[in-house]
C-alpha cells in the first residue's frame, strides 16, 4: 500500500516543484469536412470540432481535481488546413476565413489554442499549400487562438528551399501585421523539418493524415522536479546523475500516462501518445536552463552546455519510455528562450547566443524556439536561419523547428513581453552578414545520403 513518504513526495512535486500535465490535446481529423462550397466546409469544420471537443475542457478539469494534478492547457489539433480548404478556398481571404472559423470554435469549446493551420510542403507546394502559407499573416492577425505550422523539409525528401524563402517573407509579414502586440503573431507560427503527426505542443501541433479520426495526446512537464532531484546529488558522478534523471522522468511520465488514459476513457476517444518533453514555463524554478546549471554549468550557454543537454535529453527519454505505453510527439527537452526564466537570464548575461542555441538544437527537441530578434532583420536572413535549422533536422533524422520573432520597432538590448506562458524575451543580435545569394537560388536541397554517417 502507498505510504506517507510517497504521498508527500508526489504532493511536493506538485506544490513546490511545478509538476503538471502541460497539455491534453485532442487531435481531430477534418478530412470528412472537405467541401467545394466554402460556407459548407466551414459549417462542417465547426460542427465536427464542436461535437468532438465540447467536453474536453470540463473533463480535463475533472481529472485535475480528482488526482490533484494541474492540467495547464486543454487544446485541439486538426488536420492541416491546406488539405481541408484546398477544394473551397480560392484566395488568401478564403483561407483566413477558415482560420476565423477555427478561432470561433476554439472559443466556443474553451480551449486556449487550436493548432493545424498548417501546410506540409517538404518536397513541393500545391497551389492550396501556397495560398495557405500566404494567408498566414492575415489569419494570425485576425485570430487569437489559432496556431500555424509549416513543414519545410524531411530526412526523406530534403529541404524545400522555395518554401524556406517564402517563409522568411511570411514570418516578417506576420510580425508586421501584429506589430501593435509586439509581433505576437510570430509566437504562434512555427516551421519544421521532420514534423511529427502527433505533437500535442503548440504552436506546432497538427493532426497528421496517418492518424485516427480522433485521438488524445498528452504532453507532460516537470523541469522543476528534475532540478530538485538533481540538487540532492550535487557533486556525484555521471552514473548517479543519469540514474537520478531517469527515475525522475519515469515518475513524471507516469502521471502523464495516467491522465492520458483517464481522458481517453472519459471522452471515449482513443489514447494516442504521451510526449516526454521537458517543457519549461516562465515561472521561477520551472526551467530547463536551471537543470543545466544544476548539472554544473554557471549559465546555460557555457562550454559543456551541448553535452549536458544531450545527456539530459537522452535520460529523460530512457526514463520516460518505460513509463508510457506509447510515446511520441516531440519528446525531448524544450529550450525556448522567452518561456524559460533561466534561458532569459543566460541571454541577458551574455552567456547564451543564437549560435550556441543552434548547436544545442542538434541534441534536443525542438529547435530555435521563441527567439526575439531585431525587427529590421532581413527576410533572407530569417530564411537562412530557418535553412540552417532544417539542415540539422534533415541530416540528423530528427525534428527541428524555428519559431523566431522579428519584433517590429525594437532592437538589440530591448525586451519584448508576450505575457502568460509565452513569457518575455530580450532581443538577441543576429549575424549581419548576408545569405541572399544562397536563399534566392530557388529549388530544393536533395535528401541526404543514409550511409557513410560521419
Amino acid at each position, binding site marked *: 500500500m502507498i505510504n506517507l513518504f510517497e504521498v508527500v513526495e508526489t504532493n511536493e512535486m506538485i506544490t513546490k516543484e511545478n509538476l503538471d500535465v502541460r497539455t491534453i490535446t485532442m487531435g481531430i481529423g477534418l478530412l470528412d469536412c472537405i467541401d467545394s462550397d466554402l460556407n459548407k466546409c466551414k459549417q462542417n469544420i465547426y460542427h465536427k470540432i464542436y461535437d468532438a471537443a465540447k467536453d474536453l475542457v470540463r473533463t480535463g478539469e475533472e481529472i485535475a481535481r480528482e*488526482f*490533484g494534478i494541474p492540467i495547464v492547457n486543454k487544446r485541439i489539433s486538426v488536420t492541416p488546413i491546406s488539405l481541408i480548404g484546398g477544394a473551397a478556398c480560392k484566395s488568401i481571404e478564403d483561407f483566413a476565413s477558415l482560420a476565423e472559423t477555427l478561432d470561433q470554435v476554439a472559443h466556443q469549446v474553451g480551449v486556449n489554442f487550436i493548432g493545424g493551420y498548417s501546410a506540409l510542403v517538404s518536397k513541393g507546394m500545391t497551389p492550396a499549400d501556397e495560398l495557405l502559407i500566404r494567408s498566414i499573416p492575415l489569419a494570425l492577425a485576425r485570430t487569437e487562438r489559432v496556431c500555424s505550422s509549416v513543414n519545410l523539409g524531411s530526412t526523406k525528401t530534403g529541404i524545400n528551399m522555395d518554401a524556406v524563402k517564402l517563409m522568411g517573407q511570411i514570418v516578417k509579414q506576420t510580425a508586421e501585421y501584429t506589430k501593435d502586440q509586439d509581433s505576437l503573431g510570430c509566437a504562434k507560427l512555427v516551421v519544421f523539418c521532420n514534423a511529427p503527426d502527433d505533437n500535442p505542443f503548440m504552436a506546432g501541433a497538427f493532426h497528421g493524415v496517418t492518424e485516427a479520426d480522433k485521438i488524445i495526446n498528452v504532453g507532460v512537464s516537470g523541469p522543476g522536479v528534475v532540478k530538485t532531484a538533481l540538487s540532492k546529488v550535487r557533486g556525484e558522478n555521471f552514473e548517479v546523475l543519469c540514474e537520478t534523471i531517469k527515475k525522475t522522468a519515469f515518475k513524471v511520465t507516469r502521471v502523464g500516462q495516467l491522465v492520458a488514459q483517464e481522458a481517453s476513457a472519459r471522452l471515449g476517444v482513443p489514447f494516442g501518445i504521451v510526449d516526454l518533453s521537458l517543457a519549461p514555463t516562465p515561472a521561477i524554478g520551472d526551467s530547463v536552463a536551471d537543470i543545466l546549471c544544476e548539472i554544473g554549468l554557471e549559465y546555460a550557454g557555457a562550454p559543456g552546455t551541448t553535452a549536458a543537454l544531450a545527456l539530459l535529453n537522452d535520460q529523460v527519454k530512457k526514463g520516460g519510455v518505460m513509463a508510457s505505453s506509447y510515446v511520441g510527439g516531440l519528446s525531448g527537452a524544450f529550450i525556448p528562450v522567452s518561456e524559460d526564466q533561466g534561458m532569459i537570464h543566460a541571454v541577458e548575461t551574455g552567456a547564451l547566443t543564437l549560435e550556441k542555441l543552434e548547436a544545442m538544437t542538434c541534441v534536443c527537441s525542438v529547435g530555435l524556439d521563441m527567439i526575439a530578434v531585431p525587427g529590421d532583420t532581413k527576410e533572407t536572413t530569417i530564411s537562412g536561419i530557418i535553412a540552417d535549422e532544417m539542415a540539422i533536422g534533415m541530416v540528423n533524422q530528427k525534428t527541428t523547428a524555428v519559431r523566431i520573432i522579428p519584433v517590429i520597432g525594437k532592437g538589440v538590448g530591448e525586451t519584448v513581453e508576450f505575457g502568460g506562458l509565452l513569457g518575455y524575451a530580450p532581443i538577441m543580435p543576429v549575424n549581419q552578414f548576408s545569405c541572399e545569394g544562397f536563399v534566392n537560388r530557388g529549388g530544393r536541397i536533395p535528401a541526404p545520403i543514409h550511409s557513410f554517417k560521419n
Partner: protein
Amino acid sequence: MNKTIITVVGKDTVGIIAKVCTYLAQNQINILDISQTIVQGFFNMMMIVDTNGMDKHFGEMADELKLLGENIGVDIKCQKEEIFDKMHRI
C-alpha cells in the same frame, strides 16, 4: 473498492483527526489506513479511504473537506489513489 488518499497538513492542534473522522463516518467513507507524523510542529497525516459507500460526488467531498480543514487551520487534500500508485509502483 474506490480508494482515495486524504492528506492533512498544518499546525498541530487538538481534534484534527476527530473532526476529519467524524465527517468521513457521516458520509459512509471507510478508513482503510492512517499514518501520521509531526515534523517541526507540523501535523502531517495521510488516510487511505474507500469511498464506495459515499452518496456524494468526489468533488463535493473534496470541497467539504477543504472547508473543514480551513476551519481548523489545516490544509486537507483529496486525491484518487491511482496518481500515487502509478508514480511509485511499476
